[in-house]
């Protein structure tokens, strides 16, 4: 059979197309997300809050990403130091919140880093970096250095964008005067965030969302990068970790890692390590703000295993930036900012800036059992000094033995009419106990309730020879130290808050109250109505200065929106339009 050259080429091309399609499947399985973070300002005084809006966009469609549900915002200093870490809940590609800057924060240049876990697969290309300046409220010398900053544009009153025009009813306003803003020339509906802030004398360069999306977008990683694959957190936070043998320093596969936390009911979640010794645990809202107790089930005798968890905020690239000294004008600006914060603190006018956190939403406790066993209330009996005494006197179905000096607990199985050979699952204040000794010291004065299940119980694929659950009066589990093969870590709450910041119109009328604000308006969720004009309004304060109205956002069709315009506030009532 003979073939013409063109036929041969056609076959090869067809094969290559099929191959390309196959490799694309894997490419699509890895999300290509890009982060953008708008902050209310770029210069802060320690004690103030950073208000932010996080956009997570799909690099392919350029629309809001529907993949990641968890985002991370890190505040770091030069080198590798990190100051604050917050986790945010992303809803259809957007999230907002506020970060309260501790009063103790040192003056200097800082960087905010925003990202999702999935972005690590593209070598952090989708991460968003924003330099900011923070001055300590009590720093009088102000000798700190800044990142390369820019002076304000003298033409700041002119709108920056022809597509989305910001119009104000006037350009120059007096103190405590209402400002009406209208947004025009919009093509389609959009979700935006708006900040009206005093323009600092020097400010780190701020990228707009349009510039971010016009930059080189993340590329599909090659196989070498895939070795560090991070699952997109499309349901909740994923705790990544691994189990290693302390002696050989080798990873351990097939190890069962148990997770529980302090609660009134025994709770459990588990994962089995893979060939690389890695495990993943899904941290639903239930775990928000809780301490996590991780342990390894049934560590073989003579083996020393340990759990290592991944720092979800870890950065591959340290922040190294050349710093410059601030000008005297800049120092004057910082002193003014410090005074404003001082006044607001003195008059307690910072109520709208308090960092807020929400409680558990839709949190489901992964209960270890959903039925009732035998419940014993030690308070119904005479006081007993320790658990072995309790067992002897009021828990006939439990037996404590010694195996090579180590205590072992067994439960009488009513089905087989003998004590189970294996130890039961023991919970103390909801936490799976990694060492029996932790409960042996507990007497009836400390224990509120003991639940015993005599029959074998299954939890998913795991089977336990009975259950003993002890609830103490003062959460004794919190006073215990984790065993060598265990780990205890805090899972911070999801950061929220700062939905709308504006001066309360009622305050405007009280002349005795000093209202000095450098942030006049912050709205992280201003929905633009498409072709119709969108209006919003706010009040000026007693702080006469130049202000920037900055809008960033993304339209429904995936077009990034960036626009800015300025206004002037002068120390004069009843100002006429110039």
């Amino acid at each position, binding site marked *: 059979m003979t073939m013409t050259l063109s036929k041969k080429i056609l076959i090869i091309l067809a094969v290559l197309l099929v191959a390309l399609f196959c490799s694309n*499947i*894997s490419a699509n399985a890895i999300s290509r997300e890009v982060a953008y973070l708008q902050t209310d300002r770029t210069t802060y005084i320690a004690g103030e809050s950073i208000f932010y809006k996080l956009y997570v966009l799909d690099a392919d469609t350029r629309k809001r990403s529907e993949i990641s549900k968890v985002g991370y915002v890190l505040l770091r200093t030069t080198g590798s130091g990190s100051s604050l870490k917050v986790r945010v809940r992303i809803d259809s590609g957007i999230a907002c919140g506020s970060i309260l800057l501790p009063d103790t924060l040192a003056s200097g240049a800082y960087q905010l880093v925003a990202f999702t876990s999935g972005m690590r697969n593209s070598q952090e290309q989708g991460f968003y970096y924003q330099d900011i300046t923070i001055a300590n409220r009590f720093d009088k010398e102000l000798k700190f250095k800044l990142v390369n900053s820019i002076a304000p544009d003298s033409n700041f009153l002119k709108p920056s964008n022809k597509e989305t025009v910001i119009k104000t009813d006037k350009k120059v306003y007096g103190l405590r005067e209402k400002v009406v803003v209208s947004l025009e020339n919009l093509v389609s509906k959009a979700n935006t965030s708006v900040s009206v802030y005093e323009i600092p004398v020097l400010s780190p360069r701020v990228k707009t969302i349009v510039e971010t999306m016009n930059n080189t977008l993340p590329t599909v990683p090659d196989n070498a990068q895939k070795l560090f694959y991070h699952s997109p957190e499309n349901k909740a936070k994923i705790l990544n970790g691994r189990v290693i043998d302390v002696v050989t320093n080798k990873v351990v596969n097939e190890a069962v890692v148990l997770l529980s936390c302090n609660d009134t009911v025994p709770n459990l979640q*588990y994962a*089995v*390590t893979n060939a690389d010794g*890695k495990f*993943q*645990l899904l941290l639903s809202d239930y775990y928000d703000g809780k301490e996590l107790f991780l342990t390894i089930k049934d560590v073989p005798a003579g083996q020393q295993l340990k759990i290592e968890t991944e720092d979800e905020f870890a950065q591959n690239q340290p922040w190294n930036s050349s710093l410059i000294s601030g000008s005297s004008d800049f120092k004057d600006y910082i002193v003014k900012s410090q005074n404003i914060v001082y006044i607001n603190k003195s008059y307690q006018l910072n109520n709208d800036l308090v960092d807020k956190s929400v409680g558990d939403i839709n949190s489901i406790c992964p209960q270890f*059992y959903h039925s009732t066993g035998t419940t014993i209330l030690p308070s119904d009996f005479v006081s007993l000094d320790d658990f072995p005494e309790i067992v002897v006197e009021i828990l006939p179905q439990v037996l404590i033995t010694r195996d090579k000096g180590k205590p072992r607990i067994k439960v009488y199985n009513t089905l087989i009419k003998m004590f189970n050979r294996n130890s039961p699952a023991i919970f103390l204040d909801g936490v799976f106990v990694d060492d029996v000794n932790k409960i042996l010291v507990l007497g009836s004065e400390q224990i509120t309730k003991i639940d015993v299940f005599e029959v074998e119980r299954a939890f998913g694929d795991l089977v336990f020879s009975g259950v003993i659950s002890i609830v103490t009066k003062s959460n004794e589990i919190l006073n215990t130290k984790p065993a060598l093969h265990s780990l205890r870590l805090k899972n911070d709450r999801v950061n929220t808050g700062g939905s709308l910041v504006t001066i309360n119109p009622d305050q405007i009328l009280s002349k005795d109250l000093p209202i000095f604000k450098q942030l006049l308006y912050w709205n992280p969720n201003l929905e633009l109505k498409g072709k119709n004009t969108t209006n919003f309004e706010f009040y000026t304060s007693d702080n006469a200065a130049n202000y920037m109205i900055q809008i960033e956002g993304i339209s429904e069709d995936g077009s990034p929106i960036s626009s800015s315009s300025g206004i002037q506030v002068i120390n004069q009532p009843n100002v006429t339009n110039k």
Partner: protein
Amino acid sequence: MKHYLYFSFLVICISMHAQTNVGSVVPPRDSTFTAKLTGEFFYEGNKYLGVQYFNDNWTQGDILLSSGEMVSNVSLKYNGLFDEVIWMNTSNFGKFKVDKSFVKEFWLKYEPGSSIHFKRINVSEPDNGQQPDIFVEVVIESRFSLFIQRKISVVGTETLYRNDAFREFETIEPTPVYYIKLPSNHYLKLNKIRRRAFLKLFPEKKKALTKMIRVNDLNVSVESDFVKLIELMNKEVF
């Protein structure tokens, strides 16, 4: 041509292999991130003559948990004698009673697209006191719903010579109980489906129901006809 085919096969294999590398480095997610069934070891006992299950063979099923989570494709049996969902833990082949309060609904999937739906209900009424929850087959869910408890009961005893000794066995057989849920959310119970007993439940509609049974030529004692009758009740304005 043969060489081109070899070449094509080689290129496709290389491309496919490129993807599989991802899976090998990622910990198994499905087993980790899905809700876990919880339950107690189930001892079947050997003192019964007859089948204690609604489905005697292990059937693939889905369970909707009271937490709202779904556990899919697990091996299940519904035990009508103890009113329990029995789950085969495939990792150790142990049989476990799924914690009843944790199960909201479950489906036994006999073949693709066909399943039998069960749910946990409480039929307590002021005159019958607080009753425990029961699992019922959902036959009709409408204004008048029909639920059937696939109960298996001990109907007698028999002494048999087994293992070199005379032993007493309990004879068990299906004794379905029918529950009609009224629009007022009250339940009417029928231990046996009989025309007279059924008509007694609706004294005010006796004439209309009698006519409906006669016109449609229904034998109320036959379960399929009884189901048709409840369907007709939903179509007619009562």
